[in-house]
């Protein structure tokens, strides 16, 4: 019965490896679960209508509330609106430009210039966000003589570009060549083919890339410190400093009385990013079918 023993041994080995793998994956997910749990527990108690509709409290109001032992009044509406404005402007430029660039690289992969652009994209993707912030400061903030929503948008736009270019290029590249040939066989020129056949077929992948780019920059603090600066009330103008949710978190951290608000703002950001990520996962799966 040697073979029987062998099977038992193998079974035992199999089980023990399975258990080890489980233990390690559990260990590695503990920090993640701990972070999510802490942010959720501390943040959810702050979620209320006024948290989303009121701007951050002024120092005077904070002091008064502290004196009277009341909870800190106010919310993060200025940050949410600022983040959304900058995200909108950044996307309005980065999405069309990124798709165009990605389409160009995918279509002319042998050309020198396309290779050069592709290389630049890699570099840009690897550039630390704080450097992008400083560059935007030098290019935009100094000439305009003021921090502004526009400068913040430009910094975010620069960060989104390489992500959108790459996802567009990669999705276009994995389309079957038969699709391209079928289009050309009908007499299409390159531009029409791209617009009517290739880009629509790649829509799923490109859209996912856009969602990921947005969720990547929404939490960026460093580039906004040099460009948008922050603002304690709700503002819609593009040529003045503006607030953003990650900037608020940094401000709350620096004010001992407002540290409570960190958690609500963090939970908001986390929820936003998680939703985008889940949405992109869901859409990828749906479009793969």
């Amino acid at each position: 019965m040697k073979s029987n023993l062998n099977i038992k041994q193998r079974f035992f080995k199999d089980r023990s490896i399975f258990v080890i793998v489980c233990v390690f994956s559990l260990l590695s997910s503990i920090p993640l679960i701990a972070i999510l749990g802490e942010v959720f527990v501390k943040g959810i108690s702050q979620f209320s209508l006024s948290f989303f509709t009121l701007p951050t409290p002024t120092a005077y109001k904070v002091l008064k509330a502290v004196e009277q032992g009341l909870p800190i009044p106010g919310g993060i509406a200025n940050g949410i609106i600022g983040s959304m404005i900058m995200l909108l402007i950044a996307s309005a430029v980065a999405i069309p430009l990124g798709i165009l660039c990605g389409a160009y690289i995918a279509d002319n992969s042998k050309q020198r210039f396309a290779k050069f652009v592709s290389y630049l994209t890699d570099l840009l993707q690897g550039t630390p966000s704080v450097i992008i912030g400083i560059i935007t400061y030098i290019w935009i903030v100094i000439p305009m003589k003021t921090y502004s929503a526009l400068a913040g948008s430009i910094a975010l736009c620069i960060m989104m570009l390489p992500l959108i270019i790459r996802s567009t290029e990669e999705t276009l590249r994995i389309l079957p060549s038969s699709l391209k040939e079928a289009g050309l066989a009908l007499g299409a020129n390159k531009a029409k083919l791209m617009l009517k056949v290739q880009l629509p077929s790649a829509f799923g992948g490109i859209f996912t890339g856009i969602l990921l780019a947005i969720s990547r920059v929404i939490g960026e603090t460093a580039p906004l410190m040099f460009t948008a600066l922050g603002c304690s009330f709700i503002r819609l103008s593009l040529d003045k400093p503006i607030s953003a949710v990650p900037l608020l978190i940094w401000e709350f951290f620096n004010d001992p009385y407002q540290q409570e608000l960190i958690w609500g703002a963090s939970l908001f950001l986390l929820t936003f990013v998680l939703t985008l990520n889940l949405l992109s996962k869901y859409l990828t799966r749906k479009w793969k079918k």
Partner: protein
Amino acid sequence: MEKINTILEFNKTCVSYTQQTMAVKYVTAQIEKNSITSIMGPSGCGKSTLLRAVNLMHKLYPNIRVEGEILLNGENILSMNPIEVRRNIGMVFQRPTPFPTMSIKENILSGFTLNSIRLDKYQKEEIVEQTLKSVSLWEEVKDVLNKKGTFLSGGQQQRLCIARALALKPQILLMDEPTSALDPIATKHIEDLLIELQKDVTILIVTHNMGQAKRISKHSMFMYLGEMVEYDLTENMFTNPKDERTKAYLTGQMG
């Protein structure tokens, strides 16, 4: 060979992928208008390569060189604008390739969309109905014209692709093993269709299926290692092949 009404003519056509070797060597042949001509030969003999040169597919790939001439109504297409050539010479591929984001209707009209030809609603409906009828797909899909083309069966998709190519009213239709991914019934459907279509369009078809060549084509070409070994009326070739290699192939002793 007998005198024919030529529409397409190969004149010492050579195609090479690399400097050293030629995939198609000095093919010279005249293709008769409004008939079906099949190209046969063992795998790798250059059938697809020759066919793809006819609608300038090789221009997509800079390493491929085509020499000699390919004449469409006496004019060398190798020096013509690819877009113009392809509008006159349609192509159907081995695997059905409906555009996945387009509905059945949009697929039929895609030739016009891709060439920026504007049509009014009435023209569109007429073209869709006519072309779908010509590939006998109309009855099957007339109620689902707005559904994606990729929902159809393989054979239906292939007929859709034939219809898409025919919508532009090409002079020549190139087909590269159009039925090799289909079952016998769908194949029969398409063969009947091609026999019907030849009164409007000249068909040049690559096939691995000798029975198919025998059933549908008037002329047959046999290629071997890039050379055109024999080109004759299908009847003559099947009953009395002149070359030993053709004979070996037809009797199943080769590839």
